Protein backbone atom coordinates (compact mmCIF):
# COMPACT_ATOMS: atom_id res chain seq x y z
CA UNK A 1 0.00 0.00 0.00
CA UNK A 2 0.81 3.66 -0.32
CA UNK A 3 3.58 4.43 2.12
CA UNK A 4 5.48 1.35 1.27
CA UNK A 5 5.32 2.12 -2.42
CA UNK A 6 6.58 5.61 -1.82
CA UNK A 7 9.53 4.42 0.12
CA UNK A 8 10.33 2.15 -2.74
CA UNK A 9 10.14 5.04 -5.15
CA UNK A 10 12.34 7.07 -2.94
CA UNK A 11 15.04 4.50 -2.82
CA UNK A 12 15.02 3.73 -6.46
CA UNK A 13 13.99 6.82 -8.35
CA UNK A 14 15.12 5.59 -11.72
CA UNK A 15 13.77 2.27 -12.79
CA UNK A 16 15.22 1.12 -16.07
CA UNK A 17 12.31 -0.74 -17.57
CA UNK A 18 13.46 -0.62 -21.15
CA UNK A 19 16.79 0.08 -22.73
CA UNK A 20 17.17 3.48 -24.29
CA UNK A 21 20.18 4.45 -26.34
CA UNK A 22 21.59 7.32 -28.37
CA UNK A 23 19.36 6.40 -31.30
CA UNK A 24 16.03 6.17 -29.49
CA UNK A 25 13.88 9.03 -30.79
CA UNK A 26 10.42 7.97 -29.69
CA UNK A 27 9.55 9.66 -26.35
CA UNK A 28 7.07 6.90 -25.55
CA UNK A 29 9.97 4.51 -25.14
CA UNK A 30 11.86 6.85 -22.81
CA UNK A 31 8.52 7.31 -21.06
CA UNK A 32 8.56 3.71 -19.97
CA UNK A 33 11.53 4.53 -17.77
CA UNK A 34 10.32 7.95 -16.73
CA UNK A 35 6.54 7.83 -16.74
CA UNK A 36 6.14 10.93 -14.57
CA UNK A 37 8.13 13.17 -16.89
CA UNK A 38 6.51 11.62 -19.94
CA UNK A 39 2.97 12.19 -18.64
CA UNK A 40 3.70 15.87 -18.18
CA UNK A 41 5.46 16.10 -21.53
CA UNK A 42 2.26 14.90 -23.19
CA UNK A 43 0.30 17.70 -21.57
CA UNK A 44 1.85 20.31 -23.83
CA UNK A 45 -1.19 19.74 -26.03
CA UNK A 46 -3.22 21.85 -23.54
CA UNK A 47 -4.27 25.28 -24.74
CA UNK A 48 -5.18 28.04 -22.31
CA UNK A 49 -4.79 31.76 -22.63
CA UNK A 50 -3.19 34.18 -20.21
CA UNK A 51 -3.31 37.95 -20.67
CA UNK A 52 -0.45 37.99 -23.17
CA UNK A 53 0.62 34.37 -23.39
CA UNK A 54 -0.57 30.82 -23.45
CA UNK A 55 -2.76 30.28 -26.49
CA UNK A 56 -6.36 29.92 -27.50
CA UNK A 57 -7.62 26.88 -29.37
CA UNK A 58 -9.51 28.05 -32.45
CA UNK A 59 -11.47 25.35 -34.20
CA UNK A 60 -11.24 25.09 -37.93
CA UNK A 61 -12.42 22.71 -40.59
CA UNK A 62 -9.54 20.59 -41.83
CA UNK A 63 -8.90 20.81 -45.53
CA UNK A 64 -6.61 19.16 -48.06
CA UNK A 65 -3.69 21.52 -47.53
CA UNK A 66 -4.08 21.80 -43.77
CA UNK A 67 -5.49 18.88 -41.76
CA UNK A 68 -5.37 20.68 -38.38
CA UNK A 69 -8.66 20.78 -36.46
CA UNK A 70 -7.43 23.55 -34.13
CA UNK A 71 -4.94 26.37 -34.47
CA UNK A 72 -4.00 29.28 -32.21
CA UNK A 73 -5.47 32.76 -32.61
CA UNK A 74 -4.05 34.83 -35.46
CA UNK A 75 -1.73 37.61 -34.37
CA UNK A 76 -2.28 39.34 -37.71
CA UNK A 77 -5.95 39.71 -36.90
CA UNK A 78 -5.19 40.99 -33.42
CA UNK A 79 -3.01 43.76 -34.86
CA UNK A 80 -3.36 44.39 -38.57
CA UNK A 81 -0.39 46.81 -38.53
CA UNK A 82 1.84 43.75 -38.49
CA UNK A 83 0.84 43.09 -42.10
CA UNK A 84 2.14 46.52 -43.04
CA UNK A 85 5.41 45.90 -41.22
CA UNK A 86 5.95 42.61 -42.99
CA UNK A 87 4.52 43.52 -46.37
CA UNK A 88 5.91 41.21 -49.03
CA UNK A 89 7.18 38.61 -46.56
CA UNK A 90 5.68 35.24 -45.70
CA UNK A 91 4.84 36.39 -42.18
CA UNK A 92 2.24 38.80 -43.57
CA UNK A 93 0.23 35.82 -44.76
CA UNK A 94 -0.03 33.82 -41.55
CA UNK A 95 1.36 34.42 -38.08
CA UNK A 96 -0.17 32.91 -35.00
CA UNK A 97 0.34 32.83 -31.27
CA UNK A 98 2.69 29.96 -30.47
CA UNK A 99 1.38 27.05 -28.44
CA UNK A 100 2.72 23.94 -26.70
CA UNK A 101 5.64 21.81 -27.89
CA UNK A 102 3.38 19.01 -29.01
CA UNK A 103 2.23 21.14 -31.94
CA UNK A 104 5.57 22.34 -33.21
CA UNK A 105 5.88 20.02 -36.16
CA UNK A 106 2.35 20.28 -37.53
CA UNK A 107 2.19 24.04 -37.00
CA UNK A 108 5.30 24.43 -39.07
CA UNK A 109 4.23 22.06 -41.78
CA UNK A 110 0.82 23.61 -42.24
CA UNK A 111 1.36 27.29 -41.59
CA UNK A 112 0.03 29.52 -44.38
CA UNK A 113 3.61 30.69 -44.83
CA UNK A 114 4.38 27.41 -46.59
CA UNK A 115 1.86 28.37 -49.25
CA UNK A 116 3.20 31.93 -49.55
CA UNK A 117 6.71 30.86 -50.50
CA UNK A 118 8.86 27.74 -50.49
CA UNK A 119 10.46 27.28 -47.08
CA UNK A 120 13.91 25.74 -46.62
CA UNK A 121 14.81 22.50 -44.86
CA UNK A 122 16.77 24.48 -42.29
CA UNK A 123 13.43 25.30 -40.70
CA UNK A 124 13.20 21.77 -39.34
CA UNK A 125 16.08 22.34 -36.94
CA UNK A 126 13.79 23.75 -34.24
CA UNK A 127 10.54 22.03 -34.93
CA UNK A 128 11.38 18.39 -34.63
CA UNK A 129 13.54 15.84 -32.94
CA UNK A 130 16.47 16.15 -35.34
CA UNK A 131 19.35 14.69 -33.35
CA UNK A 132 19.07 11.14 -34.64
CA UNK A 133 18.07 12.17 -38.21
CA UNK A 134 21.11 14.52 -38.34
CA UNK A 135 23.38 11.70 -37.21
CA UNK A 136 21.90 9.30 -39.71
CA UNK A 137 22.08 11.70 -42.64
CA UNK A 138 25.65 12.53 -41.70
CA UNK A 139 26.64 8.90 -41.22
CA UNK A 140 27.32 9.51 -37.59
CA UNK A 141 28.49 13.10 -38.06
CA UNK A 142 25.95 15.48 -36.53
CA UNK A 143 27.30 18.54 -38.29
CA UNK A 144 27.35 16.86 -41.69
CA UNK A 145 23.73 15.81 -41.31
CA UNK A 146 22.81 19.34 -40.28
CA UNK A 147 24.45 20.71 -43.45
CA UNK A 148 22.49 18.27 -45.56
CA UNK A 149 19.14 19.19 -44.06
CA UNK A 150 19.96 22.89 -44.53
CA UNK A 151 20.23 22.37 -48.28
CA UNK A 152 16.97 20.47 -48.74
CA UNK A 153 13.64 22.05 -49.54
CA UNK A 154 11.34 21.94 -46.51
CA UNK A 155 9.06 19.20 -47.72
CA UNK A 156 11.96 16.90 -48.38
CA UNK A 157 13.54 17.56 -45.01
CA UNK A 158 10.17 16.93 -43.41
CA UNK A 159 10.33 13.30 -44.47
CA UNK A 160 13.40 12.71 -42.34
CA UNK A 161 11.75 13.61 -39.02
CA UNK A 162 8.88 12.14 -37.08
CA UNK A 163 8.53 13.70 -33.65
CA UNK A 164 8.37 17.16 -32.14
CA UNK A 165 11.21 17.94 -29.72
CA UNK A 166 11.82 14.79 -27.74
CA UNK A 167 13.76 13.54 -24.71
CA UNK A 168 16.87 12.87 -26.76
CA UNK A 169 17.12 16.49 -27.89
CA UNK A 170 17.84 17.61 -24.32
CA UNK A 171 19.08 14.53 -22.49
CA UNK A 172 21.96 12.12 -22.67
CA UNK A 173 20.31 8.74 -22.92
CA UNK A 174 22.60 7.02 -20.42
CA UNK A 175 23.02 9.58 -17.63
CA UNK A 176 19.94 11.72 -18.33
CA UNK A 177 22.28 14.67 -18.04
CA UNK A 178 21.28 17.74 -20.02
CA UNK A 179 23.17 18.34 -23.25
CA UNK A 180 22.61 20.40 -26.36
CA UNK A 181 22.20 18.79 -29.74
CA UNK A 182 21.90 21.69 -32.17
CA UNK A 183 25.02 22.45 -34.23
CA UNK A 184 23.77 26.01 -34.85
CA UNK A 185 23.65 26.62 -31.10
CA UNK A 186 27.08 25.08 -30.50
CA UNK A 187 28.61 27.24 -33.20
CA UNK A 188 26.86 30.35 -32.01
CA UNK A 189 28.00 29.83 -28.41
CA UNK A 190 31.53 29.34 -29.65
CA UNK A 191 31.36 32.60 -31.59
CA UNK A 192 29.80 34.41 -28.64
CA UNK A 193 32.45 33.21 -26.21
CA UNK A 194 35.17 34.04 -28.72
CA UNK A 195 33.87 37.61 -28.78
CA UNK A 196 34.33 37.61 -25.00
CA UNK A 197 37.87 36.33 -25.31
CA UNK A 198 37.22 32.63 -24.61
CA UNK A 199 38.63 30.41 -27.30
CA UNK A 200 37.23 27.10 -28.55
CA UNK A 201 34.30 27.03 -26.22
CA UNK A 202 32.60 23.65 -26.17
CA UNK A 203 29.22 24.09 -24.57
CA UNK A 204 28.57 20.42 -23.80
CA UNK A 205 31.90 20.17 -22.00
CA UNK A 206 32.09 23.50 -20.23
CA UNK A 207 28.61 24.65 -19.31
CA UNK A 208 27.48 24.23 -15.70
CA UNK A 209 24.35 22.35 -14.89
CA UNK A 210 22.52 25.56 -14.07
CA UNK A 211 23.55 27.06 -17.41
CA UNK A 212 22.33 23.96 -19.22
CA UNK A 213 18.92 24.54 -17.68
CA UNK A 214 18.71 27.55 -20.00
CA UNK A 215 20.89 26.39 -22.88
CA UNK A 216 18.64 23.50 -23.82
CA UNK A 217 15.94 26.09 -24.49
CA UNK A 218 18.37 28.48 -26.13
CA UNK A 219 18.78 25.89 -28.88
CA UNK A 220 15.52 27.10 -30.40
CA UNK A 221 14.13 30.16 -28.60
CA UNK A 222 16.50 32.52 -30.37
CA UNK A 223 16.83 34.98 -33.22
CA UNK A 224 18.21 33.30 -36.38
CA UNK A 225 18.77 33.86 -40.07
CA UNK A 226 19.47 31.85 -43.18
CA UNK A 227 22.68 32.93 -44.86
CA UNK A 228 21.73 34.21 -48.31
CA UNK A 229 24.30 32.26 -50.34
CA UNK A 230 23.92 28.78 -48.82
CA UNK A 231 20.71 28.89 -46.73
CA UNK A 232 22.86 28.01 -43.72
CA UNK A 233 21.01 28.43 -40.37
CA UNK A 234 22.91 30.87 -38.14
CA UNK A 235 22.30 32.50 -34.76
CA UNK A 236 23.88 35.97 -35.13
CA UNK A 237 25.78 36.19 -31.84
CA UNK A 238 29.33 36.77 -33.05
CA UNK A 239 29.40 40.27 -31.63
CA UNK A 240 27.29 39.61 -28.56
CA UNK A 241 23.70 38.88 -27.56
CA UNK A 242 22.32 42.41 -27.29
CA UNK A 243 20.21 43.86 -30.02
CA UNK A 244 22.88 46.36 -31.04
CA UNK A 245 25.39 43.51 -31.38
CA UNK A 246 23.00 41.52 -33.52
CA UNK A 247 22.15 44.54 -35.62
CA UNK A 248 25.85 45.24 -36.09
CA UNK A 249 26.32 41.68 -37.34
CA UNK A 250 23.62 42.21 -39.95
CA UNK A 251 25.04 45.62 -40.83
CA UNK A 252 28.42 44.05 -41.39
CA UNK A 253 27.33 41.10 -43.51
CA UNK A 254 24.59 43.04 -45.27
CA UNK A 255 22.00 40.42 -44.53
CA UNK A 256 18.31 41.19 -45.07
CA UNK A 257 15.37 38.84 -44.94
CA UNK A 258 13.29 40.43 -47.68
CA UNK A 259 12.73 43.59 -49.64
CA UNK A 260 9.81 45.48 -48.19
CA UNK A 261 7.09 45.53 -50.82
CA UNK A 262 5.74 48.95 -49.87
CA UNK A 263 8.99 50.87 -49.41
CA UNK A 264 11.76 48.84 -51.04
CA UNK A 265 13.75 48.84 -47.79
CA UNK A 266 15.95 45.81 -47.14
CA UNK A 267 14.15 44.68 -44.04
CA UNK A 268 14.81 42.20 -41.26
CA UNK A 269 12.40 39.96 -39.38
CA UNK A 270 13.20 39.31 -35.73
CA UNK A 271 12.16 35.93 -34.41
CA UNK A 272 11.54 34.75 -30.83
CA UNK A 273 14.70 36.19 -29.20
CA UNK A 274 13.74 34.77 -25.79
CA UNK A 275 17.22 33.58 -24.93
CA UNK A 276 18.89 36.83 -25.96
CA UNK A 277 16.35 38.94 -24.11
CA UNK A 278 16.21 36.80 -20.99
CA UNK A 279 19.98 37.17 -20.72
CA UNK A 280 19.64 40.95 -20.31
CA UNK A 281 17.18 40.60 -17.44
CA UNK A 282 17.49 40.59 -13.70
CA UNK A 283 16.56 36.92 -13.44
CA UNK A 284 19.40 35.73 -15.66
CA UNK A 285 21.74 38.06 -13.81
CA UNK A 286 20.59 36.47 -10.57
CA UNK A 287 21.32 32.97 -11.86
CA UNK A 288 17.73 31.95 -12.57
CA UNK A 289 17.25 29.60 -15.54
CA UNK A 290 14.42 29.03 -18.05
CA UNK A 291 13.67 25.68 -16.47
CA UNK A 292 13.26 27.29 -13.03
CA UNK A 293 10.15 29.09 -14.26
CA UNK A 294 8.95 27.01 -17.17
CA UNK A 295 9.70 23.55 -15.75
CA UNK A 296 9.46 24.11 -11.98
CA UNK A 297 9.81 21.26 -9.57
CA UNK A 298 6.66 19.53 -8.54
CA UNK A 299 6.14 16.94 -5.93
CA UNK A 300 4.79 13.61 -7.02
CA UNK A 301 4.54 11.13 -4.19
CA UNK A 302 7.84 11.07 -2.37
CA UNK A 303 9.77 12.58 -5.26
CA UNK A 304 10.45 15.97 -6.67
CA UNK A 305 10.56 16.12 -10.44
CA UNK A 306 10.85 18.77 -13.11
CA UNK A 307 7.48 19.57 -14.60
CA UNK A 308 7.82 18.62 -18.25
CA UNK A 309 4.58 20.35 -19.08
CA UNK A 310 6.48 23.35 -20.46
CA UNK A 311 4.10 26.33 -20.51
CA UNK A 312 3.37 29.85 -19.34
CA UNK A 313 4.36 30.25 -15.68
CA UNK A 314 1.24 32.35 -15.29
CA UNK A 315 -0.65 29.07 -15.35
CA UNK A 316 1.49 27.72 -12.52
CA UNK A 317 2.47 30.70 -10.40
CA UNK A 318 2.63 28.81 -7.17
CA UNK A 319 5.40 26.46 -8.27
CA UNK A 320 7.06 28.73 -10.80
CA UNK A 321 7.45 31.84 -8.71
CA UNK A 322 6.41 31.50 -5.13
CA UNK A 323 9.33 29.43 -3.87
CA UNK A 324 11.54 32.43 -4.56
CA UNK A 325 8.94 35.18 -4.17
CA UNK A 326 7.14 34.69 -0.96
CA UNK A 327 4.20 36.95 -1.82
CA UNK A 328 0.59 36.22 -2.71
CA UNK A 329 -0.18 34.84 -6.15
CA UNK A 330 -2.47 37.76 -6.99
CA UNK A 331 0.36 40.21 -6.33
CA UNK A 332 2.80 38.28 -8.47
CA UNK A 333 0.33 38.23 -11.32
CA UNK A 334 -0.12 41.97 -10.96
CA UNK A 335 3.60 42.51 -11.12
CA UNK A 336 3.79 40.58 -14.34
CA UNK A 337 0.79 42.22 -15.95
CA UNK A 338 2.04 45.67 -14.98
CA UNK A 339 5.33 44.97 -16.71
CA UNK A 340 3.53 43.56 -19.72
CA UNK A 341 0.99 46.38 -20.01
CA UNK A 342 3.77 48.94 -19.91
CA UNK A 343 5.70 47.11 -22.59
CA UNK A 344 2.58 46.77 -24.69
CA UNK A 345 1.88 50.48 -24.37
CA UNK A 346 5.32 51.39 -25.69
CA UNK A 347 5.19 48.68 -28.34
CA UNK A 348 2.01 50.33 -29.51
CA UNK A 349 3.70 53.72 -29.85
CA UNK A 350 6.59 52.17 -31.77
CA UNK A 351 4.22 50.29 -34.08
CA UNK A 352 2.41 53.54 -34.77
CA UNK A 353 5.68 55.24 -35.67
CA UNK A 354 6.61 52.30 -37.90
CA UNK A 355 3.45 52.35 -39.99
CA UNK A 356 3.65 56.13 -40.28
CA UNK A 357 7.20 55.93 -41.60
CA UNK A 358 6.23 53.22 -44.05
CA UNK A 359 3.30 55.29 -45.31
CA UNK A 360 5.58 58.32 -45.63
CA UNK A 361 8.24 56.47 -47.63
CA UNK A 362 5.54 55.13 -49.91
CA UNK A 363 4.06 58.58 -50.43
CA UNK A 364 7.45 60.21 -50.85
CA UNK A 365 8.40 57.67 -53.45
CA UNK A 366 5.08 58.15 -55.23
CA UNK A 367 5.63 61.91 -55.18
CA UNK A 368 8.76 61.37 -57.23
CA UNK A 369 11.55 61.76 -54.71
CA UNK A 370 14.46 59.79 -56.16
CA UNK A 371 15.63 56.52 -54.57
CA UNK A 372 18.99 57.99 -53.51
CA UNK A 373 17.18 60.46 -51.30
CA UNK A 374 14.89 57.82 -49.84
CA UNK A 375 17.82 55.69 -48.78
CA UNK A 376 18.44 57.27 -45.35
CA UNK A 377 14.77 56.82 -44.45
CA UNK A 378 14.80 53.22 -45.68
CA UNK A 379 17.86 52.55 -43.58
CA UNK A 380 16.06 53.93 -40.53
CA UNK A 381 13.00 51.85 -41.35
CA UNK A 382 15.20 48.75 -41.45
CA UNK A 383 16.68 49.56 -38.07
CA UNK A 384 13.65 50.97 -36.25
CA UNK A 385 11.44 48.18 -37.48
CA UNK A 386 13.91 45.49 -36.44
CA UNK A 387 14.03 47.07 -32.99
CA UNK A 388 10.27 47.08 -32.46
CA UNK A 389 10.00 43.60 -33.95
CA UNK A 390 12.62 42.32 -31.54
CA UNK A 391 10.26 43.08 -28.66
CA UNK A 392 7.12 42.14 -30.57
CA UNK A 393 8.55 38.75 -31.54
CA UNK A 394 9.86 38.06 -28.07
CA UNK A 395 7.17 36.04 -26.37
CA UNK A 396 7.06 37.32 -22.79
CA UNK A 397 5.76 40.81 -23.67
CA UNK A 398 8.71 42.33 -21.87
CA UNK A 399 8.77 40.17 -18.76
CA UNK A 400 12.06 38.42 -19.45
CA UNK A 401 13.91 41.76 -19.36
CA UNK A 402 11.52 44.64 -18.78
CA UNK A 403 14.08 47.42 -18.86
CA UNK A 404 15.83 46.13 -21.94
CA UNK A 405 12.52 45.85 -23.77
CA UNK A 406 11.64 49.45 -22.97
CA UNK A 407 15.07 50.67 -23.93
CA UNK A 408 14.77 48.94 -27.28
CA UNK A 409 11.30 50.37 -27.90
CA UNK A 410 12.45 53.87 -26.99
CA UNK A 411 15.29 53.63 -29.46
CA UNK A 412 12.96 52.19 -32.05
CA UNK A 413 10.70 55.22 -31.81
CA UNK A 414 13.69 57.53 -32.14
CA UNK A 415 14.90 55.81 -35.33
CA UNK A 416 11.48 55.65 -36.93
CA UNK A 417 10.66 59.29 -36.24
CA UNK A 418 14.07 60.33 -37.49
CA UNK A 419 13.30 58.38 -40.65
CA UNK A 420 10.23 60.56 -41.12
CA UNK A 421 12.36 63.67 -40.61
CA UNK A 422 14.87 62.49 -43.22
CA UNK A 423 12.10 62.36 -45.79
CA UNK A 424 11.16 65.96 -45.00
CA UNK A 425 14.79 66.96 -45.37
CA UNK A 426 14.60 65.31 -48.79
CA UNK A 427 11.73 67.61 -49.69
CA UNK A 428 8.77 65.36 -48.93
CA UNK A 429 5.73 67.04 -47.48
CA UNK A 430 2.65 65.20 -46.36
CA UNK A 431 -0.47 65.98 -48.35
CA UNK A 432 -3.23 67.74 -46.41
CA UNK A 433 -5.67 65.15 -45.14
Amino acid at each position, binding site marked *: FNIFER*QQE*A*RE*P*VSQVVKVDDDTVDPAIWGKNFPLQYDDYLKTTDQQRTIYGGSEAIRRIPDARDPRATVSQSRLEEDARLKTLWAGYAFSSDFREERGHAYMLEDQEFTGRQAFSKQPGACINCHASVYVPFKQLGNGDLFAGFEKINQMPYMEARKHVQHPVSCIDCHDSQ*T*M*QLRVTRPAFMEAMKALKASEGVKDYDVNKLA*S*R*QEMRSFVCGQCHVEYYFRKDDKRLIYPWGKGLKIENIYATYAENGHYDWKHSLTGAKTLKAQHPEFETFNQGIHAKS*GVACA*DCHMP*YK*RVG*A*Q*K*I*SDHHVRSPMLNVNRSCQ*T*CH*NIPEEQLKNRVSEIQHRTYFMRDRAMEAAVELIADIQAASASGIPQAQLAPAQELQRKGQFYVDFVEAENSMGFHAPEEALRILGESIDYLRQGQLKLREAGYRKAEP
Partner: protein
Amino acid sequence: MRRIPSSFMALVVFSVVVGVAIGLGAYTFIYAKGYSYLTNDPQACANCHVMEGHFTSWVKSSHRNVASCNDCHTPHGLVPKYASKAYNGFFHGLAFTTGNHPNPIRIKPINHEIVEHSCVGCHQAIVASITPPHQDPLSCTRCHSDVGHALR
Protein backbone atom coordinates in the same frame (compact mmCIF):
# COMPACT_ATOMS: atom_id res chain seq x y z
CA MET B 1 26.18 11.08 -1.59
CA ARG B 2 27.10 13.16 1.41
CA ARG B 3 30.68 13.71 0.55
CA ILE B 4 32.55 15.89 3.00
CA PRO B 5 33.71 19.05 1.23
CA SER B 6 37.46 19.14 0.91
CA SER B 7 37.51 22.47 2.65
CA PHE B 8 36.79 20.63 5.88
CA MET B 9 40.29 19.29 5.85
CA ALA B 10 41.46 22.85 6.10
CA LEU B 11 39.11 23.25 9.00
CA VAL B 12 40.58 20.37 10.89
CA VAL B 13 44.05 21.78 10.43
CA PHE B 14 42.76 25.10 11.54
CA SER B 15 41.27 23.81 14.76
CA VAL B 16 44.66 22.50 15.75
CA VAL B 17 46.17 25.87 15.18
CA VAL B 18 43.42 27.36 17.28
CA GLY B 19 44.31 25.03 20.09
CA VAL B 20 47.73 26.66 20.10
CA ALA B 21 46.47 30.18 19.79
CA ILE B 22 43.85 29.61 22.45
CA GLY B 23 45.47 31.93 24.89
CA LEU B 24 44.44 34.89 22.79
CA GLY B 25 41.02 33.48 22.04
CA ALA B 26 40.12 32.33 25.53
CA TYR B 27 38.81 35.64 26.70
CA THR B 28 36.46 35.98 23.80
CA PHE B 29 35.51 32.37 23.86
CA ILE B 30 34.47 32.42 27.47
CA TYR B 31 33.20 35.90 28.14
CA ALA B 32 31.52 36.35 24.80
CA LYS B 33 30.05 32.92 25.25
CA GLY B 34 31.81 31.64 22.17
CA TYR B 35 31.50 28.25 23.80
CA SER B 36 27.81 28.46 23.01
CA TYR B 37 28.86 27.06 19.71
CA LEU B 38 29.65 23.79 21.37
CA THR B 39 26.07 23.06 22.42
CA ASN B 40 23.04 22.08 20.37
CA ASP B 41 20.65 24.47 22.06
CA PRO B 42 19.38 27.15 19.70
CA GLN B 43 18.93 29.47 22.66
CA ALA B 44 22.67 29.28 23.06
CA CYS B 45 23.19 30.82 19.67
CA ALA B 46 20.93 33.67 20.63
CA ASN B 47 23.33 34.44 23.46
CA CYS B 48 24.79 36.90 21.04
CA HIS B 49 22.28 39.55 20.16
CA VAL B 50 23.52 39.63 16.58
CA MET B 51 22.01 36.14 16.34
CA GLU B 52 18.66 37.17 17.84
CA GLY B 53 17.01 38.00 14.55
CA HIS B 54 17.91 34.62 13.20
CA PHE B 55 16.69 32.94 16.31
CA THR B 56 13.34 34.70 16.43
CA SER B 57 12.63 34.06 12.79
CA TRP B 58 13.75 30.44 13.08
CA VAL B 59 11.14 30.08 15.82
CA LYS B 60 8.53 31.07 13.21
CA SER B 61 10.03 29.03 10.41
CA SER B 62 8.89 25.77 8.86
CA HIS B 63 11.87 24.04 10.43
CA ARG B 64 11.46 25.09 14.04
CA ASN B 65 10.31 21.65 15.08
CA VAL B 66 12.53 19.63 12.82
CA ALA B 67 15.91 21.29 12.62
CA SER B 68 17.80 23.47 15.04
CA CYS B 69 20.69 25.75 14.18
CA ASN B 70 23.31 23.10 14.29
CA ASP B 71 21.35 20.68 12.15
CA CYS B 72 21.84 23.10 9.32
CA HIS B 73 24.96 24.95 10.25
CA THR B 74 27.38 22.27 11.31
CA PRO B 75 28.59 19.38 9.26
CA HIS B 76 27.59 15.92 10.24
CA GLY B 77 30.21 13.62 11.68
CA LEU B 78 32.01 14.33 14.94
CA VAL B 79 35.38 15.62 13.86
CA PRO B 80 34.24 18.03 11.20
CA LYS B 81 31.42 19.12 13.49
CA TYR B 82 33.65 20.25 16.30
CA ALA B 83 36.29 21.53 13.96
CA SER B 84 33.76 23.83 12.38
CA LYS B 85 32.40 24.80 15.75
CA ALA B 86 35.80 25.76 17.00
CA TYR B 87 36.46 27.72 13.85
CA ASN B 88 33.17 29.58 13.98
CA GLY B 89 33.08 29.89 17.74
CA PHE B 90 36.50 31.48 17.69
CA PHE B 91 36.01 33.86 14.80
CA HIS B 92 32.50 34.88 15.62
CA GLY B 93 33.41 35.50 19.20
CA LEU B 94 36.29 37.62 18.02
CA ALA B 95 34.11 39.47 15.52
CA PHE B 96 31.45 40.05 18.14
CA THR B 97 33.94 41.49 20.56
CA THR B 98 35.52 43.84 18.10
CA GLY B 99 32.22 44.61 16.37
CA ASN B 100 34.19 44.10 13.20
CA HIS B 101 31.77 42.27 10.92
CA PRO B 102 29.27 43.16 8.24
CA ASN B 103 25.79 43.93 9.43
CA PRO B 104 23.57 42.30 8.27
CA ILE B 105 25.88 39.34 8.65
CA ARG B 106 26.79 37.50 5.47
CA ILE B 107 27.29 33.78 5.47
CA LYS B 108 30.73 32.74 4.25
CA PRO B 109 31.08 30.37 1.31
CA ILE B 110 32.42 27.54 3.43
CA ASN B 111 29.50 27.77 5.85
CA HIS B 112 27.11 28.02 2.99
CA GLU B 113 28.45 24.79 1.61
CA ILE B 114 27.81 23.15 4.96
CA VAL B 115 24.20 24.28 4.94
CA GLU B 116 23.61 22.98 1.43
CA HIS B 117 24.94 19.60 2.51
CA SER B 118 22.58 19.59 5.47
CA CYS B 119 19.55 20.08 3.24
CA VAL B 120 20.41 17.12 1.13
CA GLY B 121 21.28 15.19 4.25
CA CYS B 122 17.72 15.33 5.53
CA HIS B 123 15.90 15.45 2.23
CA GLN B 124 17.89 12.84 0.37
CA ALA B 125 14.83 10.80 -0.49
CA ILE B 126 12.71 13.48 -1.98
CA VAL B 127 15.47 15.11 -3.97
CA ALA B 128 17.06 11.90 -5.20
CA SER B 129 15.82 12.31 -8.74
CA ILE B 130 16.99 15.89 -9.01
CA THR B 131 20.40 15.30 -7.47
CA PRO B 132 21.88 12.63 -9.67
CA PRO B 133 25.38 11.51 -8.77
CA HIS B 134 28.25 12.80 -10.91
CA GLN B 135 26.46 16.05 -11.72
CA ASP B 136 26.95 19.51 -10.25
CA PRO B 137 24.74 19.79 -7.20
CA LEU B 138 21.94 22.34 -7.43
CA SER B 139 21.85 25.00 -4.76
CA CYS B 140 18.74 24.42 -2.64
CA THR B 141 18.80 27.83 -1.04
CA ARG B 142 18.64 29.54 -4.39
CA CYS B 143 14.95 28.69 -4.30
CA HIS B 144 14.35 27.86 -0.64
CA SER B 145 16.21 30.77 0.89
CA ASP B 146 13.92 31.29 3.84
CA VAL B 147 13.31 27.82 5.15
CA GLY B 148 15.44 28.30 8.27
CA HIS B 149 14.75 31.96 8.84
CA ALA B 150 13.57 34.73 6.60
CA LEU B 151 14.73 37.69 8.64
CA ARG B 152 18.23 38.77 9.38
